[in-house]
């Protein structure tokens, strides 16, 4: 799951378009809704997620390759954007890390250890989205094991 943390101002935010959650949401929702597998932003997310896997999984090459291939081939519906609400005032400053584009003007934080009690889902309407199905619900459930999740993702990456 790709988490984006930044104040959700739809207009005149200090952030450039590439760091504006409102714009990112629309840019991801559109290809999801249209099942557009040729969208450049989705293509970028695929490779960026793959590079993220590459950095985190250097010890297990087989799993690393499987996950990178999933990032590359997974159906575009898996890029369905969800908006989470975080009360940033409740997060201690030492846990709010400013990195990358945050250092060059964007108003955003990286929180590596965000707990489930610290956010709620603002909107992710699984029931109203015909493109989302049981697999998506299973993947966000707490009871799913790593192997089960991997099996679902591989089956949807053909």
């Amino acid at each position: 799951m790709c988490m984006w943390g930044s104040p959700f101002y739809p207009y005149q935010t200090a952030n450039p378009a590439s760091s504006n959650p409102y714009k990112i949401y629309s840019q991801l929702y559109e290809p999801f809704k249209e099942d557009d597998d040729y969208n450049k932003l989705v293509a970028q997310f695929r490779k960026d997620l793959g590079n993220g896997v590459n950095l985190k999984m250097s010890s297990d090459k087989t799993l690393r390759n499987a996950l990178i291939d999933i990032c590359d081939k997974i159906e575009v519906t898996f890029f369905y954007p969800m908006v989470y609400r975080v009360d940033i005032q409740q997060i201690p400053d030492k846990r709010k890390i400013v990195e990358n584009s945050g250092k060059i003007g964007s108003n955003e934080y990286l929180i590596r250890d965000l707990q489930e009690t610290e956010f709620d889902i603002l909107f992710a309407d699984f029931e109203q989205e015909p493109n989302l199905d049981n697999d998506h619900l299973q993947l966000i459930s707490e009871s799913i094991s790593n192997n089960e999740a991997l099996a679902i993702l591989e089956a949807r990456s053909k």
Partner: protein
Amino acid sequence: MIVDDTFSQLVKQSLGFVVPKEDEIDALLADNDLYREYGLALAWMQDYLVGYSSLPFHRRTPKSESKTYIQEVLSSDLMKPLVDNFVKNQAIILRFSEIAEANTDSESIKSLIDNFLNEMADFRIFLREAQKNGDKESLTAMYTKQKSAETEAFKAQLQWLKNNVLKSIFISSLKFQPEELNELEDEAILLPEY
């Protein structure tokens, strides 16, 4: 012909994303490991440049880190079949970076970088499709189109040299009169048409 037109076309062609040649495309489609690593390498290249672009792509790592990862990929044995293509594209992104740092407000540099990133993104999308369905036609068409555009830009540049620089040399150094040059040109003595 206006200098800026021919020059900008040539620059645009020479600073566009270098599409892999047919044998390189074959290698990419034949080896899943190579395909995977090449894709990641392109993502690092994009990351290196997005800060200079107006496209809505997001930088994931500092530039220095992207550069380190690019170097790592380049030194990997796995990448050997694509090393020529990779080095050419790497040279372009480094060049872009230098020019953009020296001209922070230049819209034309931004536009060239956007063009490079767009071409690279298009190639990645077509490559992914080809890898999924085993049909490389769209990729070879992309390569042929790029070669043809490069040739045309090169021809236009040569034509400009002929029309401007060489004539100036003939007139200033060899004391030809403009009308004499026209006669020579008519007889195709000066330079052949390209």
